[in-house]
């Protein structure tokens, strides 16, 4: 059978009647449901698709490791001052200074300093 065999007057009349049947458009609640499902998905779904979770996850893991390491480092720092290097530095300064030690601790140090300059 070919398309040409479908054009008898009877067929044409029936076709006309069928084509006049009212068209049923998609109800608004169905369109809302379809839009909700496919056009505007819930925020967690759009996040899942829009966000690249692999690099973000790697970055978050790196930040966490760094934070933990820094916290650990802070906790490991000694809470008392080691006097030995301080004393050594003090002795070295004293030995190299041009101002005598007695003058350095004198009350009129500024006056004496001015006298050195003169």
């Amino acid at each position, binding site marked *: *059978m*070919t*398309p040409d*065999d*479908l054009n008898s007057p*009877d*067929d044409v009349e*029936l*076709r006309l*009647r*069928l*084509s006049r*049947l*009212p*068209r*049923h*458009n*998609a*109800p608004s609640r*169905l*369109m809302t*449901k*379809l*839009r909700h*499902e*496919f*056009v505007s998905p819930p925020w967690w779904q759009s996040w899942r698709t829009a966000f690249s979770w692999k690099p973000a996850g790697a970055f978050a893991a790196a930040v966490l490791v760094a934070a933990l390491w820094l916290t650990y480092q802070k906790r490991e720092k000694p809470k008392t001052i080691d006097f030995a290097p301080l004393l050594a530095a003090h002795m070295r300064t004293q030995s190299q200074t041009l101002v005598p030690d007695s003058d350095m601790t004198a009350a009129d140090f500024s006056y004496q300093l001015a006298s050195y300059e003169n």
Partner: protein
Amino acid sequence: MEDKVTDETIDYESLLQRCADKAYNFAYRLSGNDQDAQDLVQEAFARAFEHKDRYDPKRPFGAWVNRILYNVFLDGVRRYERKHSVSIDNALPSKNEQGTWADVLKGKDEDPMETVMRKEDETMLHEALQKLPVHYRTALILYDIEGLSYEDIVSIMSCPLGTVCSRIHKGRQLLKQALIQKNREVMA
């Protein structure tokens, strides 16, 4: 040519706007009632968007959705048949045509007698259509009601052109018989 998906950035909103009404009308005429039609359309779009990689951009998107819809419907009929031992060639139980407030509250005035006659004719045609076996009904809906091309119908029904033509021809014959029978029922 108007409804095509060409790349990855699919505009779901415009696809829905273009194809949802046509798909719903097809589903409504196929299933015969509003609720089943809505379920069919929703299922068809869900499958279409889920398997969008299988879509051939050379073909219209609407025809592809209608093909999925038809397959979903056939699957439902086969499940029903398996469960209730009913042949696929039997008609579905007929359901009454459902109207909306938009139908009732029309803007223009019509001759009441004419309106009643037209409504009766539509209802009779719709019910007679529901009595046809699925394949014949589908061919008639796609060709005579939806006005699709033979090419699109071949693609939707997955059968050769000759088969489509003979289904349309046989479908019309069966529809005429069903209408005569309906008329007899009304007269009796």
